[in-house]
């Protein structure tokens, strides 16, 4: 965009830098000079001094300096600041002129060269007459200079040259053209910078010196001007602190000026300039709050200074520019590292700028609505001789006139007219949209989604005014859903109204219909008369006719639109539209409801569709379509499947005209209905009673899905069995299926076995078979599926036997599932229904019996360990745990190789029947030959019991239960003692007892034997003896006991002491021999004899 009247001049917005001109450089033809110039201007980064360089010819004419005023007494200023002043000091009047001259110290023609140089300097001085601009000379030399003081010729000639050129030594520089050019250049420019600063310092002093001549009445303008100049020079001098201070003073002085309609623009322009500088410097100094405060003050001071009412749009334009410029400054500062916040960011300034731009447009509309016949005045009062203004902010037709009275009111009128005519050609919408989009970008950054939406609405409206309806519609459509979802119906209605206008003007059929639908709906806050107008239009559109124009539309645009609509009618295009309603709030509401949450297959599924129209007039729909997720629903019987209404279509209009299909996804409901349903559900409001046929809309709850479940089976399934099951037995389960259907049922299938979904270990340990005669092993499944059973006629019954083998105890769930097909007739249509019935049963499995095994000595004493080669007894005890009688078919003892039987191992319990809690025992005599020391004992073998239920049929296999016998610890013993004695004694009858002592070791053993007397016996034999027994040998001891008393009497105890094995105690050995004996009383005859004898 070309700069407009309101844009700030570039010289104001740039960063002022010291201006230095370089002369005597031939940058086009001289390579050395070119290199020098490049070194000056290339790579000017922030670390280099702020100077703007310019190459000029040595005889360049600088702007003339006006003769200095000696007195301000009669001087009346014509304006505040000349338009050319800033540019003059930035780009035209240098702070320093540098004369480059090629001259070496050992130049042979020194004299000539010296004077030529002096002439050049003189020429420069001539053109700078009256200015304080410094002059410096740089000698470009081919040789590297010697260190200072060493080259005598050089210092002599340097002094001479300074003298000839009237230069101070500080202004003469040498630039050796060597490798280190950039380094020399940087040193040079630092020196130049110092000179420039001195120059600007003197300029500031010079301007300040004028002050004392000024008086407050006539020179008010000069106060501002001088203050501004001081500040500007300070900026050139890079003294920003002082610059800021002086700008602030200048700002206050501007507002002290006497304002009048004629000069208000000039004052505001200058105030705007100075304000801009202050804010800029504040941001630069990283004091953003100062900048904001200054800007607020500025706006508050200037807001009401509107000036001429006929040109009030100028004020709006100016205000808009102020905000925009501040926004730009703020944004720039953020880019350099400042952080902004949600409530203080550039967006607000752009937004305000846009607001003023809108106001400017409004004012222009009212103030510049001249008739077409009014031509731009000629000659143009806005033209000036030079093409530019002399002073900022003055009127071109009365420049430099300070009087508040209008000398020529006619001229003033023409001038104002010219400005108004000019304003008419401004494209306001473009300005507004640019500002708004700037603001949008900012608010997006600072988490203000609603602000962003609001601005986008404004943008859309502005596009609408600018007749760019496509863009307008795009923006409005984009933000609409935000307002809809937040439920701001007033705002939504307003946006929709604009959108409807746009779609009307573009004859966008689908959009037009969509917006109309929503504007007629319950979310719209339009009045009824508006709604009825829109509805009429909608009906017209559906009849393939043109709608009436929307109110407040541009007349020309309406004409174009009417033509477009007429074209639409004649054009044979698609007139069928499908509009999905779930994203907006249309004027028809729809609810679908199944009567029940589930239906059986052979029952008709019933559901209701409720429609509610919110529009003011009746409306006719032509069709209602309901779609289900399964489109072929009616043809097949679907079992166990949820049926869902996926969409509802309502057709508006007819095929002949235009047709609109309103499409609800699911069982109805739109963008607002969820919230409404929630509110309705919460409400305690009592609804008045209605006749039975009517319903309250709010009380209708959408039910868009229903379960379709299979037909109720009409068969009975019975299970017959005798629980509990016994481990590993073939458990018999009898399934009885009886049909109660009225017709024949086909394809009856049985699935039976362990119910899936239980512990995985159960599946491993449960096996099902149909054949009970053969034992089933691991390969049999846990569940038998789909066993075909055949057909069943009404009332028929069938029985199926099932055998289950449970390997482990515990409870199991068994499933028996019977399915079948049946033909039924529903609403004169024959369908095949699949029905099923299932039964589950929990069966407990228990051990059939408990087996207890124990080792006992031949004396039936409990043994913890057995002794090698000495016989012992193994006793088994079978205790029935089954509630049913068991038949022990046989039992078998399988001995381990380490055991040998003492006698035959025949089963003693063959064909024994055990009832609950009865037990059967067996006893086997065994011997264990000597084995070494075995850890954990010696294996004994297995005990195998073959059994079955007593009630089981003969063909049921016998079950063998194997019991592993416990290990036994075998120990060696050095001496074995056993006794030979009769099974009983008789009082006073001799009782011979023979003790056998057997040496089981490889050693000769010393044995001490003694017999202790007993009261019950007299005895003969060795009472105490010490003897030796050879290895493997046996010693016999014979005693004759003579019982004295009847009853169970302790025998005289035999004490054996093994001298070699002190740890084998007497007690241990005595366990092998009987300790008592039953003594019978004397016979009667004998008894008398003995009494006689006594």
């Amino acid at each position: 965009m070309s700069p407009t009247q309101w844009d700030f001049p570039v010289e104001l917005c740039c960063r002022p830098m010291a201006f230095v001109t370089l002369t005597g450089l031939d940058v086009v033809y001289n390579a050395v000079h070119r290199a020098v110039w490049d070194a000056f201007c290339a790579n000017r980064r922030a670390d280099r001094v702020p100077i703007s360089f310019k190459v000029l010819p040595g005889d360049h004419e600088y702007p003339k300096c006006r003769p200095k005023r000696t007195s301000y007494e009669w001087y009346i200023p014509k304006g505040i600041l000349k338009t050319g002043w800033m540019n003059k000091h930035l780009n035209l009047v240098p702070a320093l002129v540098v004369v480059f001259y090629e001259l070496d110290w050992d130049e042979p023609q020194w004299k000539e060269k010296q004077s030529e140089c002096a002439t050049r300097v003189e020429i420069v001085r001539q053109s700078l007459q009256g200015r304080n601009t410094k002059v410096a000379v740089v000698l470009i030399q081919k040789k590297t200079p010697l260190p200072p003081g060493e080259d005598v010729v050089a210092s002599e000639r340097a002094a001479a040259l300074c003298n000839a050129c009237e230069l101070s030594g500080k202004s003469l520089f040498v630039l050796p053209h060597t490798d280190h050019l950039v380094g020399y250049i940087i040193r040079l420019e630092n020196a130049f910078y110092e000179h420039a600063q001195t120059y600007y310092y003197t300029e500031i002093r010079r301007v300040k010196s004028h002050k004392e001549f000024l008086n407050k009445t006539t020179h008010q303008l000069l106060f501002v001007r001088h203050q501004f100049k001081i500040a500007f020079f300070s900026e050139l001098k890079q003294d920003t602190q002082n610059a800021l201070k002086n700008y602030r003073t200048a700002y206050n002085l501007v507002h002290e000026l006497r304002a009048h309609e004629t000069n208000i623009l000039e004052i505001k322009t200058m105030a705007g300039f100075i304000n801009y500088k202050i804010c800029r410097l504040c941001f630069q100094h990283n004091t953003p709050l100062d900048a904001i405060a200054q800007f607020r003050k500025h706006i508050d001071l200037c807001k009401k200074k509107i000036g001429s009412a006929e040109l009030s749009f100028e004020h709006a334009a100016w205000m808009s520019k102020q905000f925009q410029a501040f926004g730009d400054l703020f944004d720039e500062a953020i880019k350099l590292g400042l952080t902004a916040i949600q409530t203080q960011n550039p967006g607000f300034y752009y937004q305000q700028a846009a607001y003023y731009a809108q106001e400017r447009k409004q004012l222009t509309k009212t103030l510049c609505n001249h008739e077409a016949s009014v031509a731009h005045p000629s000659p143009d009062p806005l033209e000036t001789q030079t093409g530019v203004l002399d002073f900022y902010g003055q009127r071109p037709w009365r420049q430099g006139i300070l009087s508040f009275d209008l000398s020529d009111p006619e001229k003033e009128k023409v001038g104002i007219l010219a400005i108004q005519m000019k304003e008419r050609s401004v494209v306001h919408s473009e300005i507004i949209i640019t500002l708004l989009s700037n603001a949008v970008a900012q608010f997006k950054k600072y988490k203000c989604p609603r602000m962003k939406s609001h601005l986008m609405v404004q943008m859309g409206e502005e596009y609408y005014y600018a007749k760019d309806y496509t863009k307008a519609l795009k923006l409005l459509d984009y933000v609409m859903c935000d307002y809809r979802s937040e439920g701001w119906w007033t705002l939504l209605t307003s946006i929709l109204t604009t959108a409807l206008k746009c779609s009307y003007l573009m004859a966008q059929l689908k959009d037009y219909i969509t917006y109309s639908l929503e504007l007629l709906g319950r979310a719209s806050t339009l009045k009824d008369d508006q709604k009825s107008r829109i509805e009429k239009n909608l009906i017209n559109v559906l009849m393939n006719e043109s709608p009436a124009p929307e109110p407040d539309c541009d007349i020309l645009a309406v004409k174009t639109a009417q033509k477009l609509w007429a074209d639409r009618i004649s054009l044979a295009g698609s007139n069928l539209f499908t509009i999905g309603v779930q994203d907006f709030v249309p004027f028809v509401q729809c609810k679908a409801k199944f009567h029940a949450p589930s239906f059986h297959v052979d029952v008709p599924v019933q559901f209701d569709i409720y429609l509610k129209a919110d529009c003011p007039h009746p409306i006719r729909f032509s069709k209602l379509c309901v779609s289900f997720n399964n489109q072929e629903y009616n043809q097949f019987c679907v079992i166990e499947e949820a049926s869902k209404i996926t969409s509802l279509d309502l057709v508006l209009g007819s095929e002949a005209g235009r047709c609109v299909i309103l499409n609800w996804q699911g069982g109805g409901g739109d963008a607002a209905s969820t919230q409404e349903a929630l509110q309705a559900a919460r409400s305690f409001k009592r609804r008045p009673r209605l006749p039975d046929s009517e319903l309250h809309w709010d009380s209708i709850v959408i039910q868009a899905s229903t379960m379709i479940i299979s037909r109720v089976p009409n068969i009975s399934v019975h299970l017959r069995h005798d629980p509990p099951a016994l481990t590993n037995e073939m458990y018999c389960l009898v399934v009885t299926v009886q049909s109660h259907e009225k017709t024949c049922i086909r394809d009856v299938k049985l699935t039976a076995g362990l119910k899936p979904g239980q512990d995985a270990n159960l599946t491993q340990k449960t096996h099902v078979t149909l054949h009970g005669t053969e034992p089933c092993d691991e390969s049999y499944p846990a569940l038998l599926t789909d066993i075909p059973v055949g057909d069943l006629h009404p009332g028929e019954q069938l029985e199926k036997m099932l055998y289950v083998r449970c390997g482990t105890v515990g409870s199991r769930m068994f499933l028996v599932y019977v399915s079948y097909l049946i033909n039924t007739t529903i609403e004169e249509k024959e369908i095949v229904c699949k029905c099923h019935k299932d039964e589950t049963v929990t069966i407990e499995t228990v051990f059939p019996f408990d087996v207890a095994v124990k080792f006992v000595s031949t004396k039936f004493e409990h043994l913890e360990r057995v002794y090698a080669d000495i016989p012992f007894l193994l006793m088994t005890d079978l205790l029935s745990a089954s509630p049913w009688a068991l038949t022990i078919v046989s039992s078998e003892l399988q001995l381990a190789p380490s055991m040998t039987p003492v006698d035959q191992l025949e089963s003693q319990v063959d064909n024994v029947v055990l009832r609950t809690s009865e037990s059967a025992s067996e006893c086997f005599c065994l011997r264990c030959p000597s084995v070494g020391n075995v850890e954990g004992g010696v294996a004994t073998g297995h005990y195998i019991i073959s059994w079955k239920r007593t009630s089981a049929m003969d063909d049921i296999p016998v079950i063998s239960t194997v019991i592993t016998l416990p290990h036994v610890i075998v120990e060696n013993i050095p001496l074995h003692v056993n006794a030979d004695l009769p099974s009983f004694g008789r009082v006073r009858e001799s009782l011979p007892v023979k003790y056998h002592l057997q040496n089981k070791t490889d050693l000769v053993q010393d044995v001490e034997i003694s017999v202790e007397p007993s009261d019950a016996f007299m005895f003969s034999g060795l009472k105490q003896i010490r003897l030796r027994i050879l290895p493997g040998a046996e010693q016999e001891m014979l005693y004759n006991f003579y019982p004295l008393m009847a009853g169970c009497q302790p025998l005289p105890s035999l004490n054996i002491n093994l001298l070699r094995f002190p740890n084998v105690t007497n007690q241990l050995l005595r366990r092998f021999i009987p300790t008592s004996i039953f003594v019978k009383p004397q016979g009667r005859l004998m008894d008398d004899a003995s009494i006689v004898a006594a």
Partner: protein
Amino acid sequence: MGWILVTSATVILFLQNYPLYIRSVPTENELKFHYMVHTSLDVVDEKISAMGKALVDQRELYLGLLYPTEDYKVYGYVTNSKVKFVMVVDSSNTALRDNEIRSMFRKLHNSYTDVMCNPFYNPGDRIQSRAFDGMVTSMMIQVC
């Protein structure tokens, strides 16, 4: 010089960001106020989320000045149940300082509580209460 006093106090209550009650004086240009209040919710949301983070004194319900526009000041207040009150006043009305605004909000809150206590009021519905209307009106008159 004539006096033009445009004092507008828009009082609004919210639940879940849709208006429960909205009233403005003057009634022309109502849409502008609606937009202003709607956009101010950005700041309210931000303040509430900041509050949650910082766990500041939860009993301070007054959110203060939300943001100043050129001509109006927007104040916010949020109840513990996150019902938002927003008030827009003319920025030239210097009589209204923070304290006055705060007490006005408190009054509003009390009145709102009364509405909520009505067993026939369904929370979330647009407020239609004569007592509440009266209170708002009296507050607006006092401001003007």
